């Protein structure tokens, strides 16, 4: 992954805006931001993260590559679409946020300790493995993300919820063993692989 980052750096020498335009989903919209700040004021996460979408766009234009790609902001976006609905310039802000997160992850620059990044990876891994989300494994994976002791504590705290789900037949304890799968697991994986290839090519990652 480090190599990929080097490659990108070489290709776009200093021109991070151009890099974003070519490599990030909906990145070509970044230049259209007029710095009104409506998105920053609309985002429910505004007070909680370091950079609002408006700032992220400004940083991209100012060439602050490292700061942008290692920012935790894109990982905090909950896809509420408040900003997209309100942006007077009609930027697909939510998509750009996720596009940036994906790009940072791909280059290996995303913040390692960010919990939402971890959850995203956990989720993706969980659902692409069988074509179905295994909720039990996902939940346990999440609880034990920060180590054994923390995991036990969290699981214990959630025990009543788990029990309730069990009683209502919403949680199958045997899922821990194998779990249900979709009919054509191999087909799903082939499809994802193909999509991945197309994306690689379109974004200029493939050789």
């Amino acid at each position, binding site marked *: 992954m480090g190599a990929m980052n080097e490659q990108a750096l070489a290709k776009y020498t200093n021109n991070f*805006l151009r890099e974003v335009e070519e490599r990030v989903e909906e990145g070509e919209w970044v*230049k*259209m931001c*007029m*710095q009104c700040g409506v998105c920053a004021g609309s985002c429910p996460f505004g007070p909680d993260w370091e950079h609002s979408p*408006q*700032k992220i766009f*400004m*940083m991209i*234009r*100012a060439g602050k590559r490292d700061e942008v790609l290692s920012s935790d902001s894109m990982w905090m976006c909950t896809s509420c679409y408040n900003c997209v609905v309100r942006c007077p*310039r009609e930027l697909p802000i939510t998509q750009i946020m996720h596009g940036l997160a994906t790009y940072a992850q791909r280059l290996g620059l995303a913040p390692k300790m960010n919990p939402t990044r971890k959850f995203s990876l956990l989720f993706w891994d969980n659902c692409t493995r069988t074509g179905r989300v295994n909720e039990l494994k996902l939940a346990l994976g999440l609880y034990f993300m920060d180590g054994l002791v923390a995991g036990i504590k969290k699981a214990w705290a959630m025990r009543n919820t788990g029990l309730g789900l069990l009683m209502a037949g919403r949680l199958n304890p045997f899922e821990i063993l194998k779990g249900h799968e979709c009919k054509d697991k191999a087909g799903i994986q082939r499809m994802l692989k193909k999509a991945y290839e197309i994306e690689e090519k379109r974004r200029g990652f493939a050789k």
Partner: protein
Amino acid sequence: MADLKYAAYVCSGCGIGERIDAAQTAKIAEKEGKIALVRQHPFLCSSDGVALIRKDIGEGATHVAIAACSRRAKTEAFHFPSVALARANLREGVIWARPDTDEARETTQEMADDYVRMACAELKKMKLPAGNPEVGRSTRILVVGGGISGLTAAVEARKTGYEVVLVEKQAQLGGWAAKLWKRVPDREPHAAPVDTGVRELIDAVTKDAGVKVYTNATLAQTSGAPGRFNATIAIESGASVNEEIGAIVQATGFSLYDMNRLPELGAGKSPNVVDQAGLEKLAREAEASGQPICRPSDGGEVKSVVFVQCAGQRDESGKHLPYCSGYCCNTSIKQAMYFKDANPAVDTVVVYTDLRVPGNGEDFYRSAQHKGVVFTKGKVASVEPDGNACTVNFRDLILDEDARIEGADLVVLATGQVANAGVDIENADATDANGAKPISILNLNYRQGKDLPKLSHGFADSHFICFPYETRRTGIYAAGPVRRPMDIAQAMEDATGAVLKAIQAAENSQLGRSAHPRSGDLSFPMVRLDGCTQCKRCTVECPFGAIDEDEKTYPVFNESRCRRCGTCMGACPVRVISFENYSVDTVGAQIKAVDIPDEFSEKPRILVLACENDAYPALDMAAMQGNHYSAFVRVIPVRCLGSVNTIWITDALNGGYDGVMMMGCKHGDDYQCHFVKGSALATERMSKVDETLKTMSLETERVATYEVAITDLKRLPQLIEDYAKVIDKIGMSPMKGFA
């Protein structure tokens, strides 16, 4: 002179008849008003009612009083140009201003009776205005300045069929616009710079026999008045020619703020730092050579350009221009496109604090973003040239940190416009924002000075909100950046508007009528010189420079330059200035006609002198909306608060009025006064009224001045109520019964 015949009509329509005793009112007109012919009518503005009045006029009535609705209503029905006309406002001024209750009935009736007394008294003092005998002869338009505004004014005047004389100081026509490579687009899709169109305008003007063009020429003197201005033009050969002119459009434009005053932004330190005009020059040279725009220092390739917005503008330190010139954001966008359209690989960054793009500039801005022009919200602190490259240091206002752009091949400073408005007539030594001492443009031979009065920051004064082209010199209209900073599109619109106003002024002068704002008014100030003490107050105070002085310092009125505000009449201490239908006597008679109840009646009387432009219509509209006010006020509309002569105030107080409210427009830098200075002068005069009140042993509260806007429909009745309470508190005037 033919016999004077007076007639009065009392209408009982619109509910007047139900709320007041119209028959009693009619009797008052007859007995107290001493009007020979008094008629009542249930619906006076109907064709039947109007025919009745017409018939009486046909049979010799010369003076007509109509007691019905406000003088502002039914003006078409009650249009009788051959008689002197007074109106008693019984509808808006009485029944609509009062609640319909039993308790209010008596005081409402008193109000109506008084307004009829007042109208009759006024009528007795009125004459039918005959019109200014000094009529104009010429309708030619003199355009001063041959830039885009002047050329547009000339072309528009020609389209309407008027002859034009155009005077341009430079050898060539076209002004700034001719120096541009391209202009900001004025049409869909607002996506790219377009041709300036100035060539076509110059052709239209030079090929038209109806336009006399003088280049390399200036105005040596301008004298006269609308319809008969005499312009002495100093021409290239050193000789001078005289032209008779009807009205003038001054389109003398602007000078660019001198970038050498901005050394901190690198100006003068490197040829690679230019102002917007400098960049236009580079662009034109590039076009001529067929090469892309290159770096001035060494002719090298330009890879990166930084545009510095608001250079020496919107400055709070007091060193540079405090205002925004309004055109330069669009210009920088346009210039960035010069580069991007030729080669998208050139980096262009516009550093701005607020991007202000009037008109369809938003589309143009978006188009630049599409083309990849980078916009950075920041404030540039300094530009440091080093060899062929410049470093631009700025504060990033979004990220709130210091930032820099290195290696800029070109830095363009967006400097602003400094008006070419001639000398400051109030301060002969004043210099303009560039530190230059201006020379006169118009060289008027007026007593009040050679050029147009200025308002702020050196721009020619014009009524910003309502009458933007009207300067303080009648028949002279300002267009383009001489009156406020603006871009080409706005300047062209301005020129079109101004020249139409100029034509209107020239035409009105042919008919002996006033121009704006009392357009069509036939009255004009008349002075009885044998009473004049040569105090010069009128010649100094006239906001429009209409009055000159003769050798013996007697006032010389130039009626066509007059706006009919009456400020001179208000100023005159010996009251020798009057209009045929508006004078110290017409208002004085109304004041005296009011029936003043005695001290123990608990019925005070408050005189309201209300500006006819804003305060009086606001009172009418307040009443229309059902906002009631005290029955103790008697309102007299005045042309302008400036026309209020202090004798009216002392007469009223001596006559037993308990208080006087004066209502005029806002004054000061952001004035709304239709006569610019009238309300300010009135306030100034009234500040001295306290002395008079003291010598009369009266409380200073008995005279109050208010600034009123036409929108004050709720506030105005409240002001009256509050003032009535003040009078209630200080008690009735002790002066009753002595007059």
